[in-house]
């Protein structure tokens, strides 16, 4: 990726510093990193190796089949502009001055605050750095930063770092590994039952010209049950490359709710990788309701016998948004089960991309996988590219997949009109119904209300209250 502005800016400022080629903004970024963001405990050889691989690979572009429909050109340009600004400006204000999160604005639906939902533990990651961790933690749950390890986390940090290093390299993960300013560790204790006490991490861009690289490592210990909410938000101009890696121990359950509510000009690339041990399970809800560009690559590895995964997704590609979801459910062990249902809506000049891959490896006899993707296309100027894929390397499995893209059901529209609803209201009600269904997996009233508000804003009027359970 060539970014002339970055080249000029870096060279203009950095006389006497190492000369970075314009093709390697990561080199420029690494050399510009404020000293305060060095991460104690993050192995420098990982950083070096990641930078070296980036030199080789460059950022993904259209030549890569996985990036056929999504361009990182605008993302690269913003990064270059931020590099230029960071190069010219004094070092950004220290993180500690914003420890309470009060010094930056949040976009869209508003700040959930720390008083959001009773029973929920709130934490914030600002520009990739964990803010003061929550004071009171439920028994059996820990969150902390690699920069300031708590005694509870010290013992498990080494193990998590090792696991995260054993993963096959990927370019955007390398980018994160090369430039991250913090590593956030989340662990549960064996047997802990924490589903009713979710950890809600707000991942935000402060509005400073920063390319943030949040890195979250999650260890859900054997037989524990845990709800993790990862919410992306931030000020205008947010630019983020997030990586979350989770290991779910045998018999454990992870309920992961990922919500992307970035402002209309926000840009996010995100890589999530969840590995399930024997008899472990996960339910993942993924919501993309904001951003200018959002790309989420989700991989679930069903690595232990009897593991099961369930994924519900929703994306809203209205306005000028470009929303790309690549999911990969990989069955590695016998008797594993996956179910995935993704919904998308494109309107205006929006573009949605969905690629859902199911892979059943040789060792995964007796596995079950089902994937559906349903899309609504509300405008001729909008576009959705969908591709479900199956790769099966073993007999004795049951797999199904399918994708549909279309307009609202004509029979349902007529039914509503025959009851007196005008066509616009009928369309609105049906669209709301289509969008609401994936929200079913979100039990937190505060979060759910904000998501519904966002959908309502999209739909206008009171259509969002059409759902079952509401309106009496």
């Amino acid at each position: 990726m060539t970014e002339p502005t970055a080249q000029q800016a870096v060279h203009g400022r950095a006389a006497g510093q190492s000369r970075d080629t314009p093709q390697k903004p990561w080199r420029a970024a690494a050399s510009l990193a404020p000293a305060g963001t060095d991460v104690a405990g993050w192995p420098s050889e990982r950083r070096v190796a990641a930078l070296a691989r980036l030199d080789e690979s460059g950022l993904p572009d259209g030549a890569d089949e996985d990036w056929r429909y999504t361009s990182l050109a605008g993302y690269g340009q913003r990064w270059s502009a931020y590099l230029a600004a960071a190069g010219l400006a004094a070092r950004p204000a220290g993180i500690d001055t914003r420890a309470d999160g009060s010094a930056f604005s949040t976009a869209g639906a508003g700040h959930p605050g720390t008083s959001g939902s009773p029973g929920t533990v709130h934490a914030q990651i600002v520009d990739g750095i964990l803010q003061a961790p929550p004071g009171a933690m439920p028994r059996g749950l820990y969150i902390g930063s690699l920069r300031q390890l708590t005694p509870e986390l010290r013992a498990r940090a080494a193990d998590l770092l090792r696991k995260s290093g054993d993963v096959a390299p990927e370019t955007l993960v390398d980018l994160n590994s090369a430039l991250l300013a913090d590593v956030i560790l989340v662990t549960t204790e064996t047997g802990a039952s924490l589903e009713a006490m979710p950890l809600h991490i707000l991942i935000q861009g402060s509005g400073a010209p920063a390319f943030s690289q949040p890195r979250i490592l999650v260890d859900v210990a054997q037989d524990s049950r845990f709800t993790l909410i990862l919410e992306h938000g931030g000020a205008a101009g947010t630019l983020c490359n997030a990586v979350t890696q989770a290991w779910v121990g045998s018999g454990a359950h992870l309920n992961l709710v990922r919500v992307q509510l970035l402002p209309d000009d926000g840009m996010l690339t995100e890589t999530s990788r969840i590995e399930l041990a024997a008899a472990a399970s996960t339910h993942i809800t993924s919501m993309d309701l904001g951003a200018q560009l959002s790309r989420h690559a989700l991989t679930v590895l069903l690595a232990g016998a009897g593991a099961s995964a369930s994924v519900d997704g929703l994306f809203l590609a209205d306005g000028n948004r470009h929303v790309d979801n690549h999911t990969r459910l990989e069955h590695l062990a016998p008797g594993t089960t996956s179910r995935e249902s993704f919904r998308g809506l494109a309107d205006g000049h929006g573009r949605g991309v969905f690629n859902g891959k199911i892979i059943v490896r040789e060792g995964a006899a007796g596995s079950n996988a089902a994937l559906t993707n349903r899309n609504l296309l509300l405008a001729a100027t909008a576009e959705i590219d969908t591709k479900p894929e199956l790769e099966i390397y073993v007999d004795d499995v049951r797999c199904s997949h399918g994708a549909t893209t279309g307009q609202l059901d004509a029979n349902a529209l007529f039914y509503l009109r025959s009851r007196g609803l005008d066509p616009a209201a009928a369309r609105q009600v049906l669209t709301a119904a289509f969008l609401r269904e994936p929200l079913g997996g979100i039990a937190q009233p505060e979060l759910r209300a904000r998501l519904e508000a966002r959908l309502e804003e999209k739909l206008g009027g009171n259509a969002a209250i059409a759902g079952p359970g509401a309106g009496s």
Partner: protein
Amino acid sequence: MESIASNPPLLQVTDLRVAVGGKEILKGLNLTVRAGEVHAIMGPNGSGKSTLAHVLSGRDGYEVTGGSVTYLGRDLLGLAPEDRARAGVFLGFQYPIEIPGVSNVYLLRSALNARRSARGESEIDAARFLRLVKEKARLMQMDESFLQRGVNEGFSGGEKKRNEIFQMAVLEPVLAILDETDSGLDIDALKVVANGVKSLRSAERAFVLVTHYQRLLDHIRPDFVHVLAGGRIIRTGDRTLALELEAGGYEQVLAAANP
């Protein structure tokens, strides 16, 4: 016959001709329905019964090639489906549609308020609406939990039909057209549906029951029975005609009409 012939007609269908995909299905149909009357339209499969119900409700895909339909003095065929509903026309679907994610109660309130607003009335207040809905649910022997469920979502065939009559009971239409509401019902469900219809019979309201079988008419006594065949009403009588059809089948009646 209880009806009063001097009532002005609610619905006047005159020489109606309708084609579907270029093929003429209704070939000059005449029907006069006055307030207070119950009409049964019977006929063999493919005779045009459902086409008549669909055309009256404004469904797409039906081309009116001749004739007219007047409802309360207005050209019904010129009205959009929602405007027909707001003017008091109700269609009970032969195959009610499932709409997951839209609750029954939401649909009912939207529908009721659309109708009220067309009459220049304000939106119904929440408490009154709830009372009304609960009362009608009891009448139709529907559990109140149905109200919060998605429209017809996961309902059995019988539950769907019952839900249609329930909606009708809440909306209190002027003209109700019930398209094969009795099909797929067991005896108990048939009774519930029939009771729902009977409870709504009034001097101001009329029903057109489109049905293949006579059994619904054991419960709801029609004022008129029409035999529709080949796109036309070939015979009209009182409810004894339905019994005659039941005894001798359509063939006998058709043969008598076309000697």
